[in-house]
């Protein structure tokens, strides 16, 4: 290699300095700071008292935190089934030779995923609104007006009602990802299988599914990471309510830190979120690689 391809150390250092500084300052410094403050009883003011592991003991016993974690997991599962499942079905439909307007379905279907989560949250709060909501209007239209509700005030339904916009927003996103994976499959495979008499269902399960398995696993990973950080929609739609029945981890950390000004405990919660999310993300990845290897052997 020539010397000018290998630049002077000074030059490399100069180029890397600013990006690395910005990155370390926004990611590692906050993590270290949160770790430090998590051992203190600190209300955000100038006074703080060291209380050892007390925050973490509270965290482990904090039912609210664990139920928020449960809601994150609920969203992850609902979205894996709803988003990737529906996206896969829609892709098969789009790819069937009957379908018209393929380009329109792509463009329209993808559209919601480019909109801010905050806007999606507002749009759906309007849909769920008691007096002026589309949902109650629709129920009225089909003669079921008496089952109209103040939807987002129903503790038992609220998580489902929050999952629906989340699922809806990203179906098109996963649809396009899966579509691009399928379009890279050799068309001859489909033709041959059709000549061999495989019907649409058999083709989907035995040919398409195995061939795009890796893409589907990427989608699952995206789904998990995306839903562990759920915040915006819920902040807008219910703010975690009614009560705490739609609280998720990030929102709980936010409420404790800013609502109750309990920064010490808020820091401990942040560390808790960090560790739990990492476990879920890494754990699911291990599972995925384990299962995909297993199948290849069989």
């Amino acid at each position: 290699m020539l010397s000018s391809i290998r630049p002077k150390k000074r030059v490399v250092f100069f180029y890397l300095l600013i990006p690395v500084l910005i990155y370390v300052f926004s990611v590692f410094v906050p993590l270290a700071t949160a770790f430090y403050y998590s051992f203190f009883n600190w209300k955000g003011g100038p006074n703080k008292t060291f209380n050892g592991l007390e925050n973490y003991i509270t965290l482990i016993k904090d039912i609210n935190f664990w139920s928020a974690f449960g809601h994150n997991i609920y969203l992850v599962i609902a979205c894996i089934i709803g988003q990737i499942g529906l996206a896969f079905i829609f892709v098969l439909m789009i790819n069937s030779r009957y379908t018209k307007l393929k380009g329109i379905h792509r463009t329209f279907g993808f559209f919601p995923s480019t909109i801010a989560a905050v806007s999606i949250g507002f749009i759906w709060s309007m849909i769920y609104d008691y007096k002026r909501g589309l949902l109650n209007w629709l129920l009225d239209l089909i003669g079921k007006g008496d089952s109209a509700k103040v939807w987002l005030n129903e503790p038992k339904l609220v998580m489902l009602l929050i999952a629906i916009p989340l699922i809806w927003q990203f179906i098109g996103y996963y649809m396009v990802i899966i579509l691009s994976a399928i379009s890279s499959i050799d068309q001859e495979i489909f033709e041959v299988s059709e000549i061999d008499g495989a019907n649409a269902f058999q083709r989907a399960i035995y040919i398409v599914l195995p061939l795009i398995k890796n893409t589907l696993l990427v989608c699952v990973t995206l789904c998990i990471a995306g839903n562990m950080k759920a915040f915006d929609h819920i902040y807008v739609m219910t703010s975690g309510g009614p009560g705490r029945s739609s609280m998720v981890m990030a929102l709980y950390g936010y409420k404790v830190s800013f609502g109750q000004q309990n920064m010490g405990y808020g820091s401990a919660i942040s560390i808790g979120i960090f560790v739990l999310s990492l476990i879920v993300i890494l754990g699911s990845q291990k599972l995925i690689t384990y299962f995909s290897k297993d199948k290849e052997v069989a």
Partner: protein
Amino acid sequence: MEKQSRHMFSKVFVNLILIIFSLSCIFPLIWMFYSSLKEKRVFNADIVGLPANPTISNYTKVLTNPDYHIYQSMFNSLRTTFISIVLIVTCGFIVGYIISRIKFKLNRVIYVMFLMGMLIPIHSLLVPIYIVFKNFGLTDKWYTLIIPYVAFGLPIAIFLVEGFVKGIPVALEEAAAIDGSSFSRTLFSIILPVTKPILTTIAIIQTFACWNEFSFALVLISNTKFQTVPLAMTQFTGQFASDYPKIMAAMLLTMSPILVLYFVFSKQIIKGMVAGAVKG
């Protein structure tokens, strides 16, 4: 005969399902648009009907009342998004290239550090980043949000550039070096144009990410002078309470840059976002 009618049935069924889905994706937008042309009273009486007497009064009210800070928040969002993207693309390009091509002691350390950024659950930084920014006096500044947005955008950008540069033959740089081009000159006038496709992808992904980002703006910005569009939206809904047509007008106005961008460049945007997601 029976087979034919079954084909006919599945044809109608498949198309119908897809059309319903596509319409559901676009209908809220259309509903918001024509509803925003209604007066509050008219809307409350009939939430779905088309406006009999369309009026733009909601828009003029939103645009002329300085309490809503609509120009200010749109300007803030544009500035934050633009500067963040320029920085993400430039820094991502430089760091990605160096990591891919130059051997030095800390190469692996820096690579792994940025790679970890794609794994670190960023939302766990929400409260910690507030504490750090508060301690350094960095909250509520015009540049506040640019710092985390660049930091969170860098890992994927670096990763994409690094992968792309691997596919460029080293002969290109060697030839440039023989011709006496310096490292920086080769970097910007020879490598940069070659990597344009991947840099465009990065810019597309980050435009939407920065423009739509809400949670970090929420904790780091409390002064309305520096609030971005998503923050302003949470304010509208508070201020307008149940005046839905007005909220819709405000939302559509603040969404307009993204809407125009999307429907003009939808092909490139979809391609870019998907490429970024799959490779990342």
